């Protein structure tokens, strides 16, 4: 402990350069730790979100857009599909647990999702205050929407057409709040849920349409064959959410690889700077180190002093990294869509950090070994006499 105290004091005397190296190092580690967490967390999040959705029927368009709109509820839908065309395919014996969706309106920027009871009962680990809707124009509001706009059970409001407020109001149709729902899968807390009939009632001039239908497919072979069959024989688009999600993860991983490469570069710069800083410190304080040896200090003690300085730098870098990770986690709502928000249990799963803890420790020791060996080769009497 004494060696660490002396090492800390030695670093403190050149605190600006030490802090600079610690920051660069922390930025490198933060890049590595964050991409690792995003890859792992998003995959886990995707698996959770896609649970029970082996097929999605929707209007033809971009499959990725359809997934983002109809599963994560963060993009515009590709269009609407006639209910009778969709129902024709939903009668297939291997299709189970069907969830029908119809978009249309929004309430102060939050999407109003017309859906059937199978959809809201599919919400993972929900906590419901009040009750589920029993008739058209009744809504259950996601907890974050309720909190943001001060919505309570018994309130009434009307929606705006589309997903932005300036596209016109449906002031003549009032939604009646009968419940508030909260789920650990945060994107559900951003929605307003209402029966399909509400959406159809508000848009009374239009024919009855779904925006999308999600369902589970019982047989693996059907899971493989049915989407193609629907694509060929109907105007609908049939998407396998798992396959599309894999493609999305692939894109994200490519972005992650770029960030990771930059993180490695920063780590390498920090490593070199640390070695150079230590070496210049030893050159500057050579007589003091020589005197320490002359007084009987062992090479082990000198190593503890020299490597201890890098160890303190490593502690600084790790502390700053965790500070950055905490800030990234708290602010994730600002840079991740609600459907991809990561859970604390995924973000703070520290067992995966062991790799870069070990890397940090190794780099700290490795950067110190060169200067320490150099110090051993300096003749003691010359160091004391020549300075």
């Amino acid at each position, binding site marked *: 402990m004494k060696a660490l105290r002396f090492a800390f004091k030695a670093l403190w*005397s050149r605190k600006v350069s030490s802090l600079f190296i610690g920051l660069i190092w922390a930025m490198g580690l933060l890049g590595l730790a964050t991409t690792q967490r995003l890859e792992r967390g998003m995959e886990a999040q995707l698996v959770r979100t896609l649970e029970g959705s082996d097929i999605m029927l929707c209007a033809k368009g971009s499959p990725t857009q359809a997934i983002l709109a109809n599963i994560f509820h963060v993009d515009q839908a590709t269009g609407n599909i006639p209910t009778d065309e969709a129902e024709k395919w939903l009668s297939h014996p291997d299709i189970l647990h069907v969830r029908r969706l119809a978009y249309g309106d929004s309430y102060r920027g939050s999407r109003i999702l017309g859906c059937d009871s199978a959809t809201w009962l599919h919400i993972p680990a929900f906590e419901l205050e009040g009750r589920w809707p029993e008739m058209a124009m009744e809504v259950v509001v996601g907890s974050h929407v309720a909190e943001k706009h001060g919505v309570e059970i018994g309130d009434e409001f009307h929606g705006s057409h589309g997903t932005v407020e300036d596209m016109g109001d449906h002031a003549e149709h009032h939604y009646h709040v009968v419940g508030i729902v909260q789920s650990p899968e945060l994107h559900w807390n951003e929605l307003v849920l209402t029966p399909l009939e509400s959406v159809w009632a508000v848009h009374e001039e239009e024919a009855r349409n779904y925006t999308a239908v999600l369902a589970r497919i019982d047989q693996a072979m059907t899971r493989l064959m049915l989407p193609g069959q629907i694509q060929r024989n109907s105007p609908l688009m049939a998407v396998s959410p798992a396959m599309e999600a894999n493609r999305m993860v692939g894109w994200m991983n490519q972005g992650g690889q770029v960030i990771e490469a930059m993180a490695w570069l920063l780590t390498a710069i920090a490593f070199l700077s640390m070695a150079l800083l230590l070496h210049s410190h030893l050159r500057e304080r050579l007589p003091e180190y020589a005197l320490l040896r002359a007084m009987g200090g062992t090479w082990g003690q000198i190593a503890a002093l020299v490597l201890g300085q890098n160890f303190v730098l490593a502690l600084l870098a790790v502390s700053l990294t965790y500070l950055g990770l905490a800030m990234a986690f708290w602010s994730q709502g600002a840079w991740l869509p609600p459907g991809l928000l990561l859970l604390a249990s995924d973000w703070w799963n520290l067992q995966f950090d062991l790799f870069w803890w070990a890397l940090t420790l190794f780099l700290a020791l490795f950067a110190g070994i060169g200067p320490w060996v150099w110090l051993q080769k300096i003749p003691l009497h010359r160091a004391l006499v020549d300075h």
Partner: protein
Amino acid sequence: MSVVLRSSPLRIHLNRNTCLDFPALEVHAGEMLLIQGASGAGKSTWMHALAGMIPLSSGEVEIPGHGILRAGQSVPKAWRRHAVSVLPQRAFFWNSLSLEENLSLAAWAKGVDEAKVDLDRLGLAKQAGQSAHSLSMGEQQRVSALRSFISESPLLLADEPTASLDDANAQVMLELLRDQQLKHPCAIVLASHDQRVLPFVDRMVQLS
């Protein structure tokens, strides 16, 4: 008095072209010996050789109870830690540490209890938390001497301890060394060409 240092004639090669020879030497406990000689005569080299900081080309040095330093062999374990203390010509202090911490660092290197470090002895207890560089040259040299007393080694090698001091500070420094010898009967070997040390030494070796 008992023998603290026994050295045969020593030969040291500083480089391929420079070779220095030193005479046999015996120093006793409680004795203060002066090695005198002009600048460049090799006084510091001899001191450093006795401290095991320069390899011997021939000869051997014995400090009874602490082993024998032989040419071609490694320095006996704990030679510099317990057998010898070095008081360098310049008081090298870590500017990142306070006075007290500098002494604590020396105690740590020597492997001794910090309680033995007593700045009160120099009247500098109030400056304990300050940087050593805030002290005068004379005070720095005295703290450096105090640092060399930490392990109470049987042999203290002082290299030009008064070289950069005025008369008053040189006097205080030499009295401090004499006091230490009264407190702990070690042998002190001074390398100096300063005539002011003469009244304090028991014996002198002239290096040509």
